[in-house]
């Protein structure tokens, strides 16, 4: 199978990758992670296994988000540079719902984001998270259940 043009792959997935990164590391750090993810994807294109390009892409994104997280943890609190102005525009239309997702335990949050933002299948989510597909399904299910409980509670 001939690898698709990178442009086609980029156009198809760039928005979902952006939304996943914003949900994972926040809008400010998402900018750097977006760069790093797609520059790495372009340099490595095409991956040897072209049957799971989406899974491969989100594994790259996850690595970059993790790197960013580690780098932030190491930076001194009194950072010399002024904070960058985020280029993310208008406020998200559903900040409350996103905040609830953000409060999920890490495994559930990651699984839910990869299922619903990135639209990955359970085996793909498992590959990205380093778990079995069954564990990925459980994490998604538990995350969704917890979200529903939260919303039910907030309405009562």
């Amino acid at each position, binding site marked *: 199978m001939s690898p698709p043009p990178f442009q086609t792959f980029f156009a198809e997935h760039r928005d979902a990758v952006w939304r996943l990164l914003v949900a994972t590391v926040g809008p400010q750090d*998402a900018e750097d992670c977006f*760069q790093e993810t797609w520059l790495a994807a*372009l340099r490595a294109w095409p991956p040897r296994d072209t049957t799971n390009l989406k899974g491969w892409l989100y594994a790259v994104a996850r690595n970059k988000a993790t790197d960013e997280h580690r780098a932030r943890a190491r930076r001194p609190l009194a950072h010399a540079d002024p904070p960058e102005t985020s*280029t993310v525009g*208008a406020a998200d*239309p559903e900040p409350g719902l996103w905040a609830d997702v953000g409060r999920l335990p890490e495994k559930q949050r990651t699984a839910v984001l990869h299922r619903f933002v990135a639209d990955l299948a359970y085996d793909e989510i498992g590959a990205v998270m380093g778990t079995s597909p069954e564990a990925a399904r459980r994490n998604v299910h538990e995350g969704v259940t917890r979200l529903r409980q939260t919303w039910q509670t907030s309405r009562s």
Partner: protein
Amino acid sequence: MADLSFLSSGPGVPDAVLDRFLASAEPDVAVGTVDAPFGRVWVAVTARGLARVAFAEDVYDELARRLSPRVLDVPGRTDAVRRQLDEFFAGSRQAFDLELDESLVRAGFQRKVLDAAATIPYGAARTYGEVAEAAGSPRAVRAVGSALGANPLCIVVPCHRVIRAGGGLGGYAGGLPAKRWLLDREADSRTLPAPTDA
């Protein structure tokens, strides 16, 4: 019933973030487009120069297959090409001043045919038979048509200036209206003095 649809919708990547990526990206092939009066034209540029001028969106698959899958829309890398094409369509430019990447030109007969087409001056035309003769195969008129039809560098290598002996247009990868438009453009410009180099 909880609605999770908010997760799969929402704002896409902001333009500023996109632009920042495109400014650093180094694809093997950079693509841009020009909206010509007769339709959209795709141009593809490599480190060596202009490699492809095409009239249809399937050019991406072709570039991935024949040059490199690391192909990406980076309009900024195609600025010079697009500007010269705009000038050509406006009639203010008659000759292109571009580095060409001829990787997609097939060696042998196609090379000879395109070399012959490249000698046809602005505003002039030759017949398929004359090009066949110039390419060293006077009877291979149909093959000339095929070779011109597969010209990877349309407009810049002026296969549009090759027409039928009876005056009919013949064929054109960009469609006959495009060929007609280009020939008319050149005929109109020929009645005016050629623009001097600024």
